[in-house]
């Protein structure tokens, strides 16, 4: 009983200029929609991949991030003595007492200063994070003013390259190595010996204590005991959870902003589609009357025009998405509002974003096409035929 699909498709092709212009409007909206979701996803992915599930981060209670946290030496020792802490093959504890400090260094391109995380590390820090590996140079010697820089830092900040020097904590620090941490947040950090850095920044306390669990399932009992210990004022989180919490505020902001913007933009695109479809109906009044006379039901007419509008939306969606997929080649950096430090990440296209964007575009097509389609379906046959 249906009017052939090719009828809808070929009508779009027949007025291809209008089709392309209308679809472009929708493509732009889908582009913005997909791009902001990709941005939020990229940020989330970067931060979440920074953590691993069997690692635990201990920070001061009610501190949102390591930057705000402080764990003094006595408390750190108590955590160190807990039975859940795993040991490495050499029998040493897989536990790192770390310091996190923000410093301000200028970017290579703009010379504008930005916040960067300096992490004071212990020997176990690298063992806890297998995704981090030294790609160039060597590790800093203990007791010396040497640091290693994440590859994002090396590329984007002045003095971050190997052999260059950075000035902070009233000392010059030589970059002796570059480490690659993939797409994780560590790539945007500078690492140095924790004792040297505590001295330089005159910090009496560590920022956090991280360790690997001996038994992955033992987290809950550790958390309960440590958080109930009257000598300690700390909070324990799984590392994955810790980083996901950090990404949440920013990712949520991006998603809400993106969706709000695109909903407003989409009104314009929907009105464009509606005008196009009303014009299409007006140009084909006689055809509609003829089809009805031949015996096609109102529903068939409605379906044919809605189909045409859905195809228009789909075309816009595919165009917008293919544009957005090129954004994956771009790496951007932004302030991580949880730590107030620079974080580099990429637009990430996921299957979830893909179908959401297509659904969104087809939805725009539907909303734009449904009223004109109703007008077409409800036309009086005799009057429609007479307009020839």
């Amino acid at each position: 009983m249906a009017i052939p699909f090719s009828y809808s498709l070929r009508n779009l092709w027949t007025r291809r200029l209008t089709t392309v212009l209308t679809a472009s409007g929708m493509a732009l909206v889908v582009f913005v929609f997909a791009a902001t979701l990709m941005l939020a996803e990229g940020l989330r992915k970067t931060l979440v991949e920074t953590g691993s599930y069997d690692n635990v981060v201990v920070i001061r209670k009610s501190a949102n991030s390591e930057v705000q946290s402080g764990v003094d030496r006595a408390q750190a020792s108590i955590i160190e003595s807990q039975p859940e802490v795993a040991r490495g093959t050499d029998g040493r504890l897989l536990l790192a007492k770390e310091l996190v400090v923000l410093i301000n260094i200028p970017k290579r391109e703009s010379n504008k200063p930005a916040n960067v995380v300096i992490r004071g590390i212990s020997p176990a820090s690298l063992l806890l994070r297998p995704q981090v590996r030294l790609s160039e140079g060597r590790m800093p010697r203990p007791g010396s003013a040497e640091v290693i820089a994440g590859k994002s830092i090396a590329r984007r900040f002045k003095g971050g390259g190997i052999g260059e020097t950075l000035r902070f904590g009233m000392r010059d620090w030589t970059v002796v190595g570059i480490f690659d941490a993939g797409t994780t947040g560590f790539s945007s950090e500078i690492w140095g010996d924790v004792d040297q850095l505590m001295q330089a920044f005159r910090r009496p306390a560590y920022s956090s204590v991280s360790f690997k669990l001996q038994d992955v399932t033992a987290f809950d009992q550790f958390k309960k005991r440590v958080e109930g210990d009257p000598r300690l004022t700390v909070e324990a989180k799984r590392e994955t959870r810790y980083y996901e919490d950090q990404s949440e505020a920013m990712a949520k902001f991006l998603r809400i902003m993106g969706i709000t913007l695109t909903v407003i933009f989409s009104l314009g695109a929907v009105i464009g589609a509606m005008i196009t479809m009303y014009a299409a109906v007006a140009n084909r009044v006689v055809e509609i009357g003829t089809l009805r006379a031949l015996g096609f039901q109102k529903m068939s007419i409605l379906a044919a025009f809605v189909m045409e509008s859905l195809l228009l939306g789909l075309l816009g969606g595919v165009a917008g998405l293919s544009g957005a997929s090129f954004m994956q080649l771009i790496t951007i950096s932004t302030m991580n509002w949880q730590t107030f430090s620079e974080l580099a990440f990429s637009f990430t296209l996921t299957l979830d974003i893909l179908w959401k964007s297509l659904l969104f575009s087809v939805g725009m097509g539907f909303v734009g096409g449904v009223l004109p389609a109703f007008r077409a379906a409800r036309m009086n046959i005799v009057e429609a035929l007479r307009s020839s």
Partner: protein
Amino acid sequence: MGMGNGKPPIVEIAHLSKSYRRGSQTIPVLEDITFDIADGEFLALMGPSGSGKSTLLNLIAGIDKADEGTIRVGGVDITSLSERELAAWRAANVGFIFQFYNLMPVLTAFENVELPLLLTGLSRNERREHVELALQLVGLSDRVDHYPAQLSGGQQQRVAIARAVVSDPAILVADEPTGDLDRVSAGEILQLMDRLVREFDKTIIMVTHDPRAAEKARIIRHLEKGILTDSDGQPASPVAGS
């Protein structure tokens, strides 16, 4: 009751009235029309503009609603059908031929002719056979994949005729089928219609201004101010062709 060709009636119209409202005014278009059309007849409806002949044709074809009276086509009272039922009835029983052909410009000749068959239960292969047969009948087997814009007016009207006959409907209705054609093409179309009646026993009801077209018809009825008359101008008796 027998008619001009001695066959039983396929269309029976009784006390048919129709008026249009324009603002607060009611303008009568058809008044108490009663007549029959025999199966296999070729009838021309003539009359000045506004005489109601197109309205009468639309009512018989089931695309307009009467105010009063009944129209029976092949025994079915179409004035009692719902809009949905009427659409299905049209698909099975009426072939349309329009003045401006009314082909879908984005569909090929083949696809245009196939349209009415999409409303039947025929398989793809059966549809192709029917369409090819219909296009062969109108002499356009070599234009199957042409779009309407690639065909002359006469050829387009022949595609439209193929579309009208492809589902083998009970009646063909034609509204000024030669109105947009030159003399030669118009002659060909009329010849084709004549052949449909003679060789294939089709029933054609045609509205026309063209005396040459009316000549081809076997019976001519005149409509004037909503009243049906015989060819001689006398009010028509209820039985046509008497």
